[in-house]
């Protein structure tokens, strides 16, 4: 009977093309807007590294002085970044092997990039300075080569790992490990080339743009000080200091470095927290961390993302509004369905007289609604795709958030069919309850 009902549904839909079109437009508009906003919300709120998001922690230190009641702009009073001197101190502890968990300080910087090929014009590229642990911690996949040796984390050597996009644009792709790249005219040896890698959101540095492209250049953090590489990210300080040289900045209280640690178990986390308390105590003796509540905090990836409101409240409101529009569209669809079905009451009367039960009449109409919902859902997905591509072409910051993944592509028809079925329940119930005798005489 299912195929029979499908055929009846098709015949019914094409028999009233204008009403069908109106209903399809209503459903497609509702589904399109809901799916468009939901896609952005879904990608924004996705766990970028689900396999270890609970094991990676961003470190925060409340290092500012007593004069500030609070500083850094966050409710819990922890600044988003740490100072270079704290980063270096913590990094040194890793080298002494007592706290040798995977960890890395990091900084957003950038260079004019050139190759030996004189035909390729130099171009500016952002770069991430980090320790070699970065790649293992964040599961950055290598296509060729590998991360630089750990010894380079201590003594800066000009080596670089590049992303696949840059590899393609500079060399046309392929294995170019061992070749030379010039960053601000300084020669760097390529030691590794990543596969396509784009964590979304870019969780490890949300304060420099959670939805930016991942960097295509990765250099050792140990090169920052000797080469005096500038920060391309946010810099902020609570202290009024005279900074005349790069070394002044390195020794300052400016917060400009991010610091991530991988702690696989609760025990490891506890051990590291104990170490941080010891570190703060030692810094207090040096006259820093003078607040009574000076402390450290470790936030895992999901906590870090919600703490930074990567998905802003505006987005949630927008999703809510678009679902409200879907409800409005569905209410209109209910009206149209009701009118259409009740107009067909005489035919239903005949079917009932010929042996159709109320259940069969209900099923026939609900299948028609499902066909309508499915078609409307497909149109809605196309509409959502159109909206997303418009957004993508006009707003660069939405570039990574406008591609429907498989989940969203599957969600759309399910949402469309269930929403339309919900809308069709009352009209289908109403029509199956009609008294056939009333219509058999009056046809």
């Amino acid at each position, binding site marked *: *009977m299912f195929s*029979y009902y499908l055929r009846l549904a098709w*015949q019914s839909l094409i028999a009233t093309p204008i009403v069908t079109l109106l209903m399809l437009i209503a459903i497609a508009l509702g589904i399109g807007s809901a799916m468009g906003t939901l896609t952005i919300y879904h990608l924004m709120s996705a766990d970028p590294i689900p396999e270890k998001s609970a094991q990676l922690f961003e470190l925060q230190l409340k290092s500012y002085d007593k004069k500030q009641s609070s500083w850094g702009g966050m409710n819990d009073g922890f600044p988003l970044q740490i100072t270079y001197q704290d980063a270096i101190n913590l990094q040194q502890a890793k080298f002494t092997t007592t706290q040798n968990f995977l960890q890395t300080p990091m900084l957003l910087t950038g260079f004019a990039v050139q190759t030996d090929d004189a035909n390729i014009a130099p171009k500016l590229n952002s770069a991430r300075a980090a320790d070699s642990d970065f790649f293992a911690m964040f599961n950055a996949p290598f296509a060729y080569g590998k991360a630089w040796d750990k010894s380079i984390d201590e003594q800066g050597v000009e080596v670089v790992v590049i992303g696949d996009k840059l590899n393609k644009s500079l060399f046309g792709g392929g294995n170019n490990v061992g070749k030379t790249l010039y960053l601000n005219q300084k020669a760097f040896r390529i030691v590794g080339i990543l596969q396509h890698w784009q964590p979304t959101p870019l969780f490890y540095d949300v304060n420099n743009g959670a939805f930016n492209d991942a960097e295509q250049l990765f250099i050792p953090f140990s090169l920052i000080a000797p080469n005096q590489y500038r920060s391309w990210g946010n810099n902020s300080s609570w202290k009024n200091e005279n900074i005349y040289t790069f070394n002044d900045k390195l020794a300052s209280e400016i917060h400009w470095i991010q610091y991530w640690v991988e702690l696989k178990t609760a025990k490891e986390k506890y051990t590291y927290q104990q170490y941080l308390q010891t570190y703060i105590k030692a810094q207090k003796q040096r006259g820093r961390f003078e607040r009574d509540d000076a402390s450290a905090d470790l936030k895992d990836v999901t906590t870090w993302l919600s703490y930074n409101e990567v998905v802003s409240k505006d987005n949630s409101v927008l999703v809510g509004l678009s679902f409200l529009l879907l409800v409005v569209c569905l209410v209109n669809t209910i009206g149209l369905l009701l009118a259409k079905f009740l107009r067909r009451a005489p035919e239903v009367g*005949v079917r009932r007289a*010929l*042996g159709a039960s109320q259940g069969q009449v209900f099923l026939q109409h609900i299948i028609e609604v499902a066909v309508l919902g499915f078609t409307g859902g497909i149109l809605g997905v196309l509409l959502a795709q159109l909206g997303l591509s418009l957004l993508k072409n006009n707003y660069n910051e939405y570039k990574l958030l406008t591609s429907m993944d498989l989940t969203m592509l599957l969600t759309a028809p399910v949402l469309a069919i269930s929403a339309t079925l919900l809308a069709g329940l009352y009209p289908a119930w109403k029509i199956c309850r009609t008294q056939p*005798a009333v219509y058999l*005489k009056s*046809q």
Partner: protein
Amino acid sequence: MLKMNNINKIYRTELVETHALREFNLTVNEGEFVTVTGPSGSGKTTFLNIAGLLETVSQGQYLLDGIDVVGLNDKQLSKLRNEKIGFIFQSFNLIPDLNLYENVEVPLRYRGFNSKERKRRIEQALEQVGLAARMKHLPSQLSGGQQQRVAIARALAGEPKFLLADEPTGNLDSLMARQVMELLKDINKQGTTIVMVTHDPALARSGERNIQIVDGQVCDFSLYSSNNNEKTA
């Protein structure tokens, strides 16, 4: 075939109670051709709807082919209606978007026949009413008489034991009406029980028995010989 004992049908609204049938008693034997007459508002249609299981009774007993139908649920009633009863209406009640084949197919679909069996029955029924060549036509492409013949084919396709006809010639001219009546008589001769409601005294005489309903009760009946419409009792 049909036995109604002390049937009452009451329509209730907030303001008024209407007794459409009261203490209604009727027996129709298997293979009979019974015509039902009566003035407007006498309860003919209510009787037909109850007989056709389209409405339930308020009180009383109704046996259809030996089955007590009072108290059956909608699914059971629909199954019984599909298997045992064929309907012919005054206004044909064909589904306009379906062609003749598909119209005749409707009750067979609900019966659950496979496509081969449906095809056999549809072709046979349309053959019987002389419209086998026009299977792919829509109802709107046929004359009134032809449409009624399709409706008869639809009623016959399920091979029901019992045919209910409500003014089957009411919308037809006299020539077409005569053809339809001949067809119904043929069907009856093949063993199908027919109950036909009509206003037309001439048509009322074409059955074997005529019953008159007045004020929701059977008030009179007459017997006719099947050949010359002569009143015999």
